[in-house]
Structures are given as C-alpha cells and as structure tokens.
C-alpha cells in the first residue's frame, strides 16, 4: 500500500517538471521573480500548520487541566489565552515576511 502511494506521488511530482521550461522574467503573476509567490505561500502554509499543531497541544493541556480540576478554570483560562496568543505570533512573523516579499519591487 505504501509502495503504491509512493509510486503515485513520485509520478505526480515528475509531471510538474515542464514548469522549469518557462522563461524566468515577466511570467504571469510575478514581477521579476516567479519564486516569490511560491516561497510566500509555502512558507506561510508551513508556519500555519506548525502553529496549528502547537496551539492544539496547548488546548489539549488546558482541557485536561480543566477536566481534572474544574476549580482552577480561571487560572487555566488565563494561561491558555496567553499561550495561544504567543504561539499565534510566531505564525504572524512569517506572515509579515511573506507580505514583505510579496509587496516588494520584485514581487507582485
């Protein structure tokens, strides 16, 4: 099953090879550098995915804490909100870099 999946994935990847044949400058969407939207989208997706995992772990800990000790709800809520915002800000740093790339001279 895994071998079939791996074979299918590699065939799909090889189908994308003709993309390298297009010329570099003035392609549709990009200004001078066609890799900027790719980098921005990929970087942002990676950052958002990992941020989602981190926030999920934080919420997991908070829910377990509330389930074990319902009296500590207020303290756990405060810690949860603070933790979520701090993890969120890491994904937002990547967003700022993505915007900086996209809105620069070589970007869109």
């Amino acid at each position, binding site marked *: 099953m895994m071998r079939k999946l791996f074979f299918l994935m590699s065939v799909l990847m090889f189908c994308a090879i003709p993309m390298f044949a297009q010329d570099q400058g003035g392609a549709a969407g990009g200004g001078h550098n066609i890799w900027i939207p790719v980098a921005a989208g990929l970087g942002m997706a990676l950052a958002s995915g990992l941020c989602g995992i981190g926030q999920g772990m934080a919420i997991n800990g908070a829910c377990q804490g509330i389930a074990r000790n319902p009296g500590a709800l207020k303290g756990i809520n405060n810690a949860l*909100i*603070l933790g979520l*915002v701090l993890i*969120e*800000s890491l994904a*937002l*740093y990547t*967003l*700022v870099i993505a*915007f900086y790339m996209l*809105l620069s001279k070589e970007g869109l």
Partner: protein
Amino acid sequence: MVTHEAWLTKLFNAHFAAFANWLLALFGQKADNPAEPWADFITMQLLVAAIILVLFLLLRSRLSVDKPGPLQHVFELIHNFISGEAEGQIGHDGHRHIVVFETLFIFILVANLIGVIPGFVSPTQVIYVPVGCALIAFLYFNWVGIQKRGAFKYAAHFAGPVPWLAPLMLPIEIISTLARPMSLSVRLFANMYAGEQVTIVFLGLTYLIIPSVFMGLHVFVALLQAYIFMLLTMIYVAGAVAEEH
C-alpha cells in the same frame, strides 16, 4: 497600497498642510508630497485620542458615589479588571503602574476597533503606531526597573542567578529583552493588518455573510490583542520589579 485617503485626512490636508510642513521642517524632515503631508494613521490617531479625551471628560462630569450611571459602571468594570490583573501579576505594588497599563489598553482598543467603522482607518494597521506603543512599553518597564534597583544592579540582573553562568546568560537575556518590543509591535500590527486583508479578500469573492464572519473574527482579535499587549507589558514590569523573597 493606499488607494484613497480617509475623509478626515482629506480635511486635514486641505486646512492644516502648512502646519504639518512647518512641524516636519522643525525636525529637518520633508514630506513625500508637500501638498498632502498628513497621513491616514496620524489623523486617525489624533481622532482616537480626541474620542478618548471626550469620553473621559464626559465620564468625569457624571461621576457620582450614590447613583452611578451606566458609563461609570462600564469604566469601573474596566478599571477593576485591569487593577485585578495588575495586582495578580506585580503584587502589592501594582497600583502604581496602572496608569500606563490602562492608557495603553484603552488607546489600543479604540484604535483597533475604529477601523471596523466604514470611512475610518485603524491606525494600528500601519507598522509605525504599534512600534510607538511597544517603545513606550519597553522604555517604561526598563525605567521602572532602573528606578527600583539602580542602573548598575538592573543591568547586573541580566547575568542570571549564578555568577559563573553570566557569559552564557548575558547575551541570551539581552537579546530576549531587545526582542520584546519587536514581538509586541509585530504581533499587534500583523493581527490588525491580516484581519483587514482577510476581510478584503473575502469581500472580493462573495458578499455579506462570509466577509461579516471574518469581520466579527477581526473584532474579537482586536479586543484580544489589546488585552494581550497590556498583559505582556504587565509581565515585563513584574519581571523588572521582581524581588527575591
């Protein structure tokens, strides 16, 4: 990528352009376009400050011990909330710093929320305003620490608890302290800017229900970010003022 100015900026540029140019020349700067020296975020900041001033003047004229009105109830709620948080974070000395916390909270809250009203632009959507607020927080917690412990002892607390760890702790502590205003400003700016961009993107795709859901999310995030800015400032002040019992 501002395509048009807010109506308030047009008003300012029409009447007060000479004043702004004179003010800029005082510092040796020159506006990009001398016919339009006022930017959106400056006029909106002044508007937010004026709104807060008028609100508090109104509140002050209606203060009463026996029969508090609804305005007084609301602000007592806010003040008790911030006071409680400050006492929780900093301990018994918290009440001395409430002024800065409350000012930052109410300013950032009103500045974030004013962008939701059509025709107004949130000043915190431009990087300069959150950097200004973060610099105030940074200078404040450093000043409080220096005031409490003296400049040399405050710098010495970066070295960590044990002296032989100092060469390792010193660069780490200094870099993490310098990263604080950066993280404060980027967090606030990115949340506000992204909230507006997401609403704009969805307004371009569909209309009414989905964009208003994202606008509601933006309002919630605006409230949360104002609270978090204030909470983090409190934590930094608590770290600077902390005593080893």
